[in-house]
C-alpha cells in the first residue's frame, strides 16, 4: 500500500468520483467501463409488495404471440381455461406469488449481528470516555455520605405516613 504512487492514487480517486457522480448508474464501475442500468421513474412501475399488492403495470408488458393469444382466450369464459393457462396468466401479470414474497430470509441474522456489533462498539466508546472525558466521581456517591444522607432523611421525617420514615422504628432505632 505504501508503494502506491501519487499518480495511481489520483486515477483511483478519479474513477471512484466518476462512478459516484453518474446519477443513473446502479452498479459501481468495477471494470473501468460504466454499466448504466437506469430505471425510468416517469413510467408506470412494477413491484412485488405484500402491503400494497397493486403495481402500476403488469409484470410482462411485452407479450409474445402465444401470450397474446392467451390474453385473447382470457376474454372468454374462464371455465374454459386449463389450470396451466390460469397459472400462466397469473405469471404474465405478476412476478411473485404471495407465498414467494413472504419467504423468510436470513436477514434477521444480519440485523441482530449488526446490533450486537454496534452495542459492543458503543461499549468501547464509553470505556474511552470513562478514561478521558468523565470528571471525578462526586463525593455524594461514597458509602459514608450515603449513610449520613439516609440518617438526615429520617431525621427530617421524610414521608412519615406511608413512605420512607414510616418504615423506620424511631423507638428501637431500626427498620420495622
Amino acid at each position: 500500500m505504501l508503494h502506491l504512487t501519487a499518480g495511481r492514487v489520483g486515477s483511483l480517486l478519479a474513477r471512484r468520483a466518476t462512478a459516484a457522480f453518474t446519477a443513473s448508474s446502479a452498479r459501481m464501475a468495477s471494470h473501468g467501463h460504466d454499466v448504466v442500468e437506469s430505471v425510468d421513474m416517469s413510467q408506470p412501475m412494477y413491484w412485488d409488495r405484500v402491503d400494497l399488492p397493486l403495481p402500476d403495470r403488469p409484470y410482462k408488458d411485452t407479450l409474445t404471440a402465444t401470450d397474446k393469444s392467451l390474453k385473447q382466450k382470457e376474454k372468454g369464459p374462464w371455465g374454459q381455461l386449463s389450470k396451466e393457462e390460469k397459472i400462466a396468466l397469473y405469471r404474465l401479470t405478476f412476478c411473485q406469488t404471495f407465498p414467494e414474497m413472504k419467504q423468510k430470509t436470513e436477514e434477521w441474522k444480519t440485523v441482530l449481528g449488526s446490533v450486537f456489533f454496534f452495542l459492543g462498539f458503543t461499549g468501547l466508546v464509553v470505556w474511552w470516555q470513562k478514561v478521558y472525558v468523565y470528571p471525578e466521581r462526586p463525593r455524594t456517591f461514597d458509602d459514608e455520605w450515603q449513610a449520613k444522607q439516609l440518617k438526615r432523611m429520617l431525621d427530617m421525617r421524610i414521608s412519615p405516613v406511608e413512605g420512607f420514615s414510616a418504615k423506620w422504628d424511631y423507638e428501637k432505632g431500626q427498620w420495622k
Partner: protein
Amino acid sequence: MSLPKPVMRGMLAKRLRIHLPLAFVVSFGLALTYKFAVAEPRKRAYAEFYKTYDSIKDFNAMREAGVFESVRPTGK
C-alpha cells in the same frame, strides 16, 4: 365455484356493539379498582396517622436531630 357473498357493510357497528360497552365496563372497573385498592387505603392511612400525631413532640425530635436552621438543639 360459488362463494358466499362476503360482509359488505356494518363492520364497524358490529365491532362497536361489543367493544364500546366493554370499553366502558373496563374503564369503570379499573377506576373502581384503583379507588378501592389505592385511594381509600391511602386516605385511611393518613386519617389513622393524624389521629395520634403529636406535632410538638415530632418537632422537638427533629430539633434535637439538628435538621432545622431557625432553632438549634436544646443545650449549648
